[in-house]
């Protein structure tokens, strides 16, 4: 294998995007994504079985298109990387089975990698991010804030290929999931994130004071004696509060101020996310925070994160959106880091792990 600039083919199928990406070292060659999002709209959320069926049918065409777009053949590839978790079990199974077939049919090494860590590794591919790529590596004292329909986490990244730590995570719904559910309460379409973001611009974020999950002292503790959920999130109580609020207006026969509720809900989510992320950075000596996941597209999150990071002297990095949402290039990017750092490939007998912890960067 070429260990200095390996050509890696990355496969992603943990949720509703079938992604195949090709990366040479830290250079993005192609990022091909086929989404089953349209098929989930009428259900108001991702239906795992529908996503799995779509992955099966999308995989080979997506692979073919990625190879065509990059102008490479499978024989040129040095190694294959695939998301082995965390994610939807049935969806992961499709990508993993296909990746194993590719590995055994070509004789190339296979890396079973962690989806969350791949969201961080993708930062290496975005040459528009200042600092990244100058020395071919990620900044030191790096943290990551991942916010999507499937996950909400704060990570500390000491080494992308060998040392990643989970500082905080949601204990119930993911942030993007809360956006979807609240969008439905307000009569907006799936996906809820963009719909709430748009409507919130016309509303007053201070109109309703919604609860900030896990911010009470008994959960937070102090820097020296942290509580049980100092950097964790919870959004299910918030979702219930929004439902009660909407029902209150209905019971009183009043018109529901949907824009105000959308703005107030969004502020409640993003206030906690950014406050806890910055708190974690300050207390853990993190000086650069990389944002990832589909919710990174939210305009208010970008503004709030930028303001709070700047005030705390933290550099905020946000890769371009096509790299923030789930894709195969991020899987390839992490695979390339593992190959370049001499990490041993995975055995053909690994099983996908729908709750793979971030401490396990590859299997």
């Amino acid at each position, binding site marked *: 294998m070429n260990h200095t600039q390996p050509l890696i083919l990355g496969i992603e199928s943990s949720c509703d995007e079938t992604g195949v990406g090709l990366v040479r070292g830290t250079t993005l060659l192609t990022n091909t994504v086929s989404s089953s999002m349209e098929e989930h709209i009428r*259900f108001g959320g991702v239906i795992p079985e529908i996503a799995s069926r779509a992955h*099966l049918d999308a995989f080979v065409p997506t*692979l073919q298109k990625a190879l065509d777009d990059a102008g490479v053949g499978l024989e040129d590839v040095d190694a294959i990387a695939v998301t082995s978790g965390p994610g939807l079990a049935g969806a992961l199974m499709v990508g993993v089975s296909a990746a194993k077939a590719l590995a055994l049919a070509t004789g190339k090494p296979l890396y079973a990698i962690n989806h969350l860590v791949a969201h961080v590794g993708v930062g290496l591919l975005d040459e528009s991010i200042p600092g990244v790529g100058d020395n071919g590596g990620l900044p030191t004292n790096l943290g990551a804030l991942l916010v999507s329909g499937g996950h909400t986490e704060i990570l500390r990244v000491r080494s992308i290929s060998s040392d990643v730590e989970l500082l905080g995570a949601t204990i119930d719904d993911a942030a993007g999931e809360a956006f979807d559910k609240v969008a439905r309460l307000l009569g907006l379409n799936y996906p809820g994130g963009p719909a709430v973001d748009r409507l919130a611009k016309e509303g007053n974020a201070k109109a309703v004071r919604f609860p900030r999950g896990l911010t009470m002292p008994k959960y937070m503790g102090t820097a020296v004696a942290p509580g049980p959920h100092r950097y964790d999130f919870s959004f299910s109580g918030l979702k219930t509060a929004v439902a009660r609020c909407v029902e209150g207006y209905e019971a009183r026969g009043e018109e529901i101020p949907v824009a105000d509720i959308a703005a107030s809900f969004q502020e409640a989510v993003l206030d906690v996310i950014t406050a806890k992320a910055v708190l974690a950075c300050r207390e853990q000596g993190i000086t650069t925070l990389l944002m990832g996941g589909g919710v990174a597209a939210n305009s208010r999150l970008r503004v709030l994160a930028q303001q709070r990071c700047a005030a705390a002297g933290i550099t905020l990095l946000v890769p371009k959106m096509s790299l923030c949402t789930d894709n195969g290039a991020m899987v390839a990017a992490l695979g390339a880091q593992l190959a370049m750092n001499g990490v041993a490939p995975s055995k053909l007998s690994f*099983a996908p792990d729908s709750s793979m912890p971030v401490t396990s960067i590859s299997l």
Partner: protein
Amino acid sequence: MRILTIDTSAIASAAVLEFDPLDPVRTTELVANFATDDTRSHAEVLAPGVKSLFKDPVAEGPALDAIVVGTGPGPFTGLRSGIAMARTLSFTWGVPLYGMMSLDALAQQVFDTPARRDGRAVGPLAMGDFVVATDARRKEVYWAKYNAGAHLLDGPHVGPANQISGVLVFGAGAGLYLDVLENNGCSIHLEFAQAQPTALELGRAAARRITAAGSLQAAGLLASTPLYLRESDAKVPGPRKRAL
């Protein structure tokens, strides 16, 4: 002609078989075979199992004449693992891919198994129409009806075992619902009460069909589209209840 067959509709299995499509008399030769006992470890075992069928898969794979994959019916996640594997091998090696209904494998096995008396083969096991059934979970079976020559008459279906009546029933689905079936006037062959579709029998059924037709193209094999038989279970949410 050398084919690779994969079936993950129940257990995970794969086989390489060789036969002459122009010589129906010559028996199909098994080159290599792999099968699990259980129905829940496809993710781990299938790829090493397929690999173990070859000395050098990278060189031998492209020389195959076809890949035949069992298209179910079967539990979805396991079924997809085999089809995803087969489609990707077909793409990578440039080998044509065909599908076959997985229950055909069990029907073929019934057809190949003679009835014995005092240890001697005395004739076919099924003298007339018969049904093969596998476990569809949720208290249901996947089933199909065949004639004595193992040609499909009806199915595949999914439903409770009491849909089947007055017929000889083979397969793990029959073993699971013995009482229901016997109350329905069915008879169960205990030798087949745990039998599952396997890639080996699927390959034999494919070879029989190909030699009968004289060529792969004329054999009327299916595409690799999975036979789910059930919808995704997703429900479109109704309008939210208003608090009045």
